[in-house]
Every structure is written in structure tokens, then in C-alpha cells.
């Protein structure tokens, strides 16, 4: 099977029509291909997240990763932009939803799109995935250890993270959740609380918590990387998206 891909930074219309940068990786075959919006983690629009986008492309998905910190530093390095965003209180939820929606619409506009779009995010992007899947029409979602889906950041913190579990009734698609059993944010208790909300609202979901893994176990460039959990997690992601995003 032909496996060529192309990956590049492009400009798309984000929240409020703002032009923002996004990393776009797609298969070069005729398609049709499903789309995936990849939401980066708190450390920003970095090399590791772009690698994830390319990985989706090699598996037959058109993937786009919007730079949620673009406005804080259009030409800044990812770490500088992430630092500026943190100092400014983080990317506002409304703006994130607008940027994710712009990404979703972009994927649907592709001539070789199959009409299905999923969303996946890591760390803060996990919470933003949950938020986006409740606010926007997606076909499948994957929350990788998103903190503050339940609970909010403490009073007085410059970085504002409001709980989004209250939106669960509006969740638009099946949700896969991948967590580390040793994580404290989200802790196993937090995960149980999210699961209870999903059950209450009769949503389709599947949760997996990995023993011996904490936060960030997918991050190959960090000490928290746990290959066994990450390998199993990737397999579950492919199964999930194949099930809900196939033509």
C-alpha cells in the first residue's frame, strides 16, 4: 500500500476568524481519509506533538494540530510561547474551542475527506478535547490524561482551569480515555468521577488506566514515558478511531 505523507505548517482560520498556524500532516493517496484534530499539551506546539500528527498521517488520517499559543508569539519558539501563555493565564477556553472548530472545519473541507473527524489531546489538551467534544460535533474523541475535567485550578492561580465535566450531557461522540493509575491530575478518583458522569448521561465511552504509569506516559521525550502503556494506548487509539471514523 502506498504510504507517502506530507507534513507542513499552514495557516487556518481559528477563533473569531483569526489566522493561526497549524501543523498539517496527511496521507498523499487519493483517500477518502478521516480527519483528526490533535491538541497539544501545556508545553506547547512542540516537536513531539507534531510527530504525533505525522503518526496519524502514516495511519491514514489527515491530521491537523493548531498552535493554541499562536497569538502569544507567532514567531516564538514553542517553549517561549508556552511560557508566555502560562504567564497570561493559559489559552482561554472560548478561544480554544474556536481554534479547534476552525481545525475541524478545515479537515472537512479537504477534497479527500470522508466526512468524519475525531479529536485527541494530551495533558491540558485532554481537558480541551473533552471540552471540544462537548461543544462541537465530532465523531470520536480521545482524552489522554486530561487534568481538571473535574475540579478546577485553585483560587488565585494565574492559570485558570475550570471543570468541564458539567458539559458531559452535550458530549457529541464516543470517548476513549487513557490514564495513568499513578497520576495525581487526573487521579484515579477524578477518573472515576468522569466515568460516573458519562454513565449518568448514557454516553458511549471506554476508559483504561495503566498500572505503573503516571501522567504523560505517551511522551517519548520525557522521563514519564512508559513504553508498555504507550504501546497499548496507541493500539486502542487505532481501534477506536477505526471503529468510529471509518467511511
Amino acid at each position, binding site marked *: 500500500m502506498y504510504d507517502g505523507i506530507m507534513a507542513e505548517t499552514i495557516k487556518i482560520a481559528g477563533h473569531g476568524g483569526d489566522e493561526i498556524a497549524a501543523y498539517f500532516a496527511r496521507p498523499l493517496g487519493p483517500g477518502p481519509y478521516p480527519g483528526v484534530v490533535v491538541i497539544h499539551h501545556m508545553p506547547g506546539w512542540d516537536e513531539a506533538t507534531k510527530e504525533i500528527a505525522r503518526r496519524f498521517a502514516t495511519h491514514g488520517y489527515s491530521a491537523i494540530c493548531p498552535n493554541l499559543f499562536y497569538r502569544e508569539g507567532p514567531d516564538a519558539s514553542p517553549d517561549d510561547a508556552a*511560557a508566555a501563555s*502560562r504567564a497570561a493565564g493559559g489559552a482561554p477556553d472560548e478561544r480554544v474551542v474556536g481554534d479547534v472548530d476552525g481545525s475541524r472545519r478545515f479537515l472537512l473541507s479537504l477534497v479527500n475527506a470522508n466526512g468524519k473527524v475525531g479529536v485527541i489531546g494530551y495533558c491540558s489538551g485532554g481537558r480541551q478535547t473533552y471540552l471540544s467534544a462537548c461543544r462541537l460535533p465530532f465523531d470520536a474523541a480521545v482524552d489522554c490524561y486530561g487534568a481538571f475535567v473535574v475540579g478546577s485550578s485553585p483560587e488565585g492561580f494565574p492559570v485558570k482551569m475550570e471543570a468541564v465535566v458539567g458539559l458531559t450531557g452535550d458530549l457529541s461522540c464516543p470517548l476513549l480515555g487513557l490514564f495513568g493509575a499513578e497520576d495525581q491530575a487526573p487521579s484515579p478518583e477524578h477518573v472515576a468521577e468522569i466515568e460516573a458522569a458519562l454513565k449518568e448521561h448514557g454516553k458511549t465511552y471506554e476508559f483504561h488506566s495503566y498500572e505503573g504509569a503516571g501522567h504523560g506516559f505517551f511522551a517519548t521525550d520525557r522521563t514519564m514515558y512508559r513504553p508498555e502503556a504507550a504501546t497499548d494506548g496507541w493500539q486502542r487509539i487505532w481501534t477506536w478511531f477505526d471503529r468510529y471514523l471509518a467511511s
Partner: protein
Amino acid sequence: MCSYVTEKTDIAGSGKGPEGWFRLNSATVYFDHPFHAPYEHTLNIDFVDNTAGPGARVAVELSAESARELVRCIESALAAAGPAADVA
């Protein structure tokens, strides 16, 4: 965990980045995942000029133990300087 624990304060002074010295007016202090240091969590400090764009930043990522030792050293140096440190 992703702590999001963040403190901010105004500061006065200068720092040196890739382009040379520049004035600093703000510091962000947080205990969270590092970009570069080989630890799960570090005490991170961004010394910035928030009028000059995201690149006007001097960043450090310290192990918790070394951050505490640094605090002790700073307090010790300021105490040893006596009255001079009160008016600088």
C-alpha cells in the same frame, strides 16, 4: 501530574539571553513538567520582559532539591549584605 501551580511577581533587574542583556520586569514561578531537565517535575522560573515578546525570557528548570538550596543561598546572601540589600 500536570500541576499548573503557578506564581507570578513583578521584579526589577536585568537578565542575559541569547541577544545579550535586557531589563526584566516579571517572573513566573511554577512547579510542573520541564522542557529540558531530566526530571518529571521541576521548579521552573521564567524571568521576562513582558513588553518585549515571548523571546525576552531567561528560563531555568531546577530539581526541587536544588531549588530549595537556591532559595537558602539567596536568603543567606541577602541577609549577609545587611542594610545594603534593603535599599538596592
